[in-house]
C-alpha cells in the first residue's frame, strides 16, 4: 500500500512495527514524503508437521510481504513442498499458526479450495488446467455456480485479462494448442483473477525453454508491481538471482534463515542448502577412505548420452573405488547413472564394462553384466509396496534367474533371513508388506535386493535420503566395506559431507553437463560448492 502525503516540517523517521505490519517511512527532506507501507501478507510461525517416522517440518517460520518475489530454496527432502502443502491446505499442520492479511485471527486451512478463497493460489509444475477447453473456459470454469454462462461476455473479459498481463493467447483458443509457457501463464492468470494475495509457483520453469522463461519472468515482475506476494520454488540458482527479492532456505525440515538476495552470494546459498551436518562419525575416518588400489577399470563411458537430455559425458570407475556425483537437484546426477544402467534409452556414445564394449538397452542387460542400481526415488522406483519384504528382497535376483526358475520358499526365506540379520532390518517378519516398514528399513531391503545380485558395479542413488542418521552411518560404513572387498561403487548424495566421507573421487554436474572431477586434496566443501555454482574461487 502506498500512502502519499506532504510534509513541510522537520525530518521524521518512523519505524513502526505492529503485530503483522512493518511500516517503513522514507523521508525526503523538505519536500514530499513518500511512505512505503509494505504489508506482510502472509506469516507462518512455528510450523510443525510430522509424518509417520519422519519429522518433515520443525518450527519453521516464513514471512511474505506484498509485492515481493520470495524464493523458497532447499534440497530434496528439505521440506519445501511440505511447507507449501501445509499452506495450501493439502496437509494439516501439527502445530504453529498461519496469518494472512485482512484476517485478524490465525487461519486454519483444511482444503485447497479454502486456501483459494483466502487468496492463496498455487500453480504447479504440471499444468492442472483442462487442455481440451478454451483459454477463456479455463480462466472461469468452476468459479461460479451459474448454469448458464454468457460466453461472449466471458470471452471479452478474458481478453482484457490476457491483454493486461501481456499473455499472447486468444480466449477462444483451445488450451492444448498453446505452448507450455502460455498454458503456465493462463494458470497464473486464473490464479490472479481470483483476487489472490499470495501466489505460489512450484517449479514453474522446469519445462520451459529460455525464451518462455523470460516471458514468465516478465509476467511475474508485472504481478510484483501489482502487489502480489509470490513464493517461487525452483532449483535453478540463476533464476533466483535474476528475479527474487528474498530467499528463505530450508534444510532437513528446519529453517536455515531468511536472506535478502543481495546479502547472500551464490556460493553461500549452496552451502546453506547443503548444510554442514555435524554428525559424530568417529568410526568413519575423516578423509576419503576408499583410495583405490587397483587399475582395473570396471565401467567406462565415452560420450554417453541418453534421452533424458543429459549431455555426453565420460566417466570411469575402477575396481574397489567409490565415486560420487555431486550437483544440485536436476543437474543430471541421476540421469548419468540411469544411462549406464539402461534405465533411460541411450542415444549416443559407448559403454565399456571391464574393457568389453556392451550395448545396454534395458536394465536386465545391465544386471546380467553385473550392474546394480538402487534408484533415487524409493517410493516411486524402488519398493513394490504391497509385496512382502521377502519378495522385494529377491526380486532382482529372481528376474535375473528367469521366469521358469523361481526360488523355492525355503531358498527365498534363507536369503531373506540372511540379509535381514546382516543389515539389521527391523521387520516383524519376512512376510510383512514392505510399505509398512519405516523408510530406513525399506531402503535396507532395497539395498539387500542389489547386494543379493553380487554386482561388480553398484550404483547407489541417494541411498540415505529420508532415513535416520543411524541408518545413514550404517549404509556409509557398508559402502566402504563393500569397496574394500573389491566392488566398484557410485554413491550419490545430496549431502556433500556424506560423499566426502565415502568417495575417493567426485564428479561434479551442473545443468546436465559434467563440469568437473575432484580428487584428493581438491575434495573440499569449498571447491565442490564453487564448482557447482560455476564460479572461480
Amino acid at each position: 500500500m502506498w500512502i502519499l502525503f506532504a510534509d513541510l516540517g522537520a525530518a521524521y523517521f518512523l519505524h513502526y512495527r505492529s503485530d503483522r505490519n512493518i511500516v517503513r517511512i522514507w523521508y525526503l527532506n523538505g519536500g514530499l514524503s513518500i511512505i512505503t507501507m509494505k504489508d506482510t501478507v502472509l506469516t507462518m510461525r512455528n510450523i510443525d508437521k510430522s509424518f509417520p517416522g519422519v519429522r518433515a517440518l520443525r518450527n519453521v517460520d516464513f514471512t511474505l510481504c506484498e509485492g515481493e518475489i520470495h524464493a523458497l530454496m532447499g534440497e530434496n527432502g528439505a521440506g519445501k513442498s511440505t511447507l507449501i502443502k501445509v499452506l495450501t491446505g493439502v496437509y494439516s499442520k501439527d502445530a504453529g499458526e498461519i496469518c494472512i492479511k485482512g484476517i485478524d485471527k490465525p487461519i486454519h486451512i483444511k482444503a485447497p479450495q479454502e486456501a483459494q478463497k483466502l487468496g492463496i493460489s498455487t500453480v504447479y509444475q504440471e499444468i492442472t488446467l483442462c487442455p481440451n477447453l478454451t483459454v477463456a473456459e479455463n480462466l472461469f470454469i468452476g468459479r461460479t455456480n451459474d448454469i448458464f454462462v454468457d460466453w461472449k461476455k466471458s470471452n471479452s473479459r478474458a481478453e482484457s485479462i490476457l491483454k493486461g498481463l501481456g499473455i499472447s493467447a486468444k480466449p477462444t483458443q483451445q488450451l492444448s494448442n498453446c505452448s507450455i509457457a502460455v498454458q503456465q501463464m493462463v494458470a497464473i492468470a486464473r490464479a490472479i483473477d481470483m483476487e489472490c494475495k499470495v501466489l505460489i509457483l512450484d517449479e514453474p520453469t522446469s519445462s520451459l525453454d529460455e525464451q518462455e522463461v523470460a516471458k514468465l519472468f516478465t509476467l511475474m515482475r508485472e504481478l510484483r508491481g501489482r502487489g502480489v506476494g509470490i513464493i517461487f520454488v525452483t532449483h535453478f540458482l540463476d533464476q533466483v538471482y535474476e528475479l527474487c527479492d528474498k530467499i528463505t532456505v530450508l534444510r532437513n525440515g528446519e529453517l536455515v534463515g531468511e536472506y535478502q538476495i543481495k546479502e547472500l552470494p551464490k556460493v553461500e546459498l549452496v552451502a546453506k542448502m547443503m548444510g554442514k551436518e555435524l554428525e559424530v562419525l568417529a568410526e568413519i575416518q575423516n578423509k576419503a577412505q576408499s583410495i583405490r588400489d587397483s587399475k582395473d577399470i570396471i565401467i567406462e563411458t565415452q560420450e554417453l548420452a541418453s534421452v533424458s537430455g543429459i549431455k555426453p559425458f565420460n566417466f570411469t570407475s575402477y575396481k574397489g573405488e567409490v565415486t560420487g556425483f555431486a550437483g544440485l537437484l536436476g543437474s543430471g546426477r541421476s540421469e548419468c547413472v540411469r544411462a549406464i544402467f539402461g534405465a533411460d534409452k541411450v542415444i549416443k556414445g559407448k559403454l565399456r564394462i571391464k574393457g568389453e564394449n556392451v550395448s545396454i538397452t534395458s536394465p536386465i542387460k545391465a544386471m546380467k553384466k553385473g550392474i546394480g542400481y538402487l534408484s533415487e526415488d524409493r517410493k516411486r522406483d524402488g519398493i513394490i509396496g504391497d509385496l512382502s519384504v521377502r519378495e522385494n528382497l529377491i526380486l532382482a535376483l529372481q528376474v535375473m534367474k528367469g521366469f521358469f526358475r523361481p526360488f523355492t520358499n525355503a531358498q527365498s526365506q534363507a536369503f531373506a533371513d540372511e540379509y535381514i540379520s546382516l543389515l539389521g532390518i527391523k521387520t516383524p517378519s519376512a512376510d510383512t508388506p514392505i510399505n509398512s516398514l519405516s523408510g530406513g528399513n525399506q531402503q535396507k531391503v532395497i539395498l539387500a535386493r542389489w547386494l543379493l545380485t553380487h554386482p561388480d558395479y553398484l550404483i547407489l542413488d541417494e541411498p540415505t535420503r529420508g532415513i535416520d542418521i543411524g541408518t545413514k552411518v550404517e549404509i556409509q560404513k557398508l559402502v566402504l566395506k563393500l569397496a574394500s572387498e573389491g566392488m566398484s561403487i557410485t554413491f550419490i548424495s545430496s549431502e556433500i559431507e556424506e560423499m566426502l566421507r565415502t568417495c575417493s573421487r567426485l564428479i561434479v554436474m551442473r545443468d546436465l553437463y559434467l563440469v568437473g572431477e575432484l580428487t584428493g586434496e581438491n575434495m573440499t566443501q569449498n571447491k565442490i560448492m564453487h564448482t557447482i555454482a560455476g564460479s572461480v574461487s
Partner: protein
Amino acid sequence: MSRNSNRLDTDRSKSVLKAITRHGLFIPIAFLIFLLLLNVFINPGFLIISLGRDSNGNPVLVGNIINILSNATELVILAIGMTLVTSSSRGQDISVGATVAIVGGVIMRVLCGNETQPAELHAPIIVALLLGCLAGMACGAFNGILVSKFNIQPMVATLILFTAGRSIGSMAMGGLKPKAAASFGYYGNFIPGFPIPTPILITIAVILVTIIALKKTNLGLYTRAVGINDKASSLNGLNPARIKFLTFVILGLCVGIAGFVQSSRVQTVNPYTIVPSIEMDVILAVALGGNSLGGGKFKMSGSIIGAYTIQTLTSMLTTLNVNTNAVPVFKAVIIIILVAIQSPVFKNFFGSRFSFSRLSAGSGKERG
C-alpha cells in the same frame, strides 16, 4: 484366578476370531457357505447327490451341487485368466463373452465345415480344441498389444472385440448355424459310462495347471510386481509391457477352453446369445474373491470361490422361480451388498465402531 484364566480364554478366542475374520478369504467363503445354507433351508434335499441314468442308460451323478459345479466351469476358467489381467494391467477385459463367441464359431466351423448338420465330425476334436484356443489367444494378443504397447485402458481396448466379437463369431461359421455330431457333446456333458460331468473334470484340470504354473514359474510374482509398481519393476529388469501382454494371452487361452466347453454343451453355437454378459459375472467373481479391481495383489483362490458363489446365486434364483428377466436385479442387489461389505470404508467404519464400543465398555486395555 479363574476369572483371569477365563478372560485369557476369551481373549484368545477373540484373537482367533479376529484372525479368521481378518483373513482375506473370510467374506467370500462365509458368503458361499451362507448361500449354500440358505439353499438347504429352501430345499432340504439341496445337498443330495444321487446316481441316476441318462436317456441312454449311462450312469450319471445328479444333484444341485453337481449342476452348480458343472455350470460354473466357464466362469471359473475365465475368472482365473481375468485375475491375472486385472492384477497386471489394473483393468479388466470386457470382451471375454464376445471372444467366447469367436472361439465357438471357429470350433463349429472346424467340426462341421460348411454343412449344417453333418453326420460325422469333419476334424478330430483335439484339432478343434487347439484351433479354438489359438483363436482365443489371438484375441487376447490383440487386446494385449493395445493395452501394453499402445497404453490404452484395458476396458477401452477390449471394447473393440466386445462390440465386434459376436459378429466375427457368426462370420467364422459362414453365417450358418451348424450342429455338430453327438460325440462332440461329451465335453460339455458326460463321457458315456463315466458318471462325473466332464466340465467338472476340465475345471479341476485347469485349476491344477494354474496352481502348478503359479508355483513353478514366476507368473504370480511378476504380475503382482508389475501391477503394483511398473516403474520399479522395470528398474528391476522386468518388462512390464511383455508381462501385461502375457496375461492377456493367458486369458485368451482360458477363453479358448471355456468356449470349447460351452459349445460342446449343446453342440451348437449361437454367437449372438452364447454366454450372455458373462464378462460382468467374471469381473464380479474376481471382485467377490476380495481382489482389488485396481490391480496389484491377487488371490486366485478368492476368484475361484467368487465364481462358484455367483453360479450358486444364479441357480438359486432360478430354482426360486424368479422371473428370468428379474434375475439380474436380484443378483445386482446381493452383489452390491457384498462388495460394499468388503470396501475399506465399511471396514474402517465397522472397525472404529468396534474398538469404540470396547473402550466405552470400560475394558480399555488395548486398541487394535
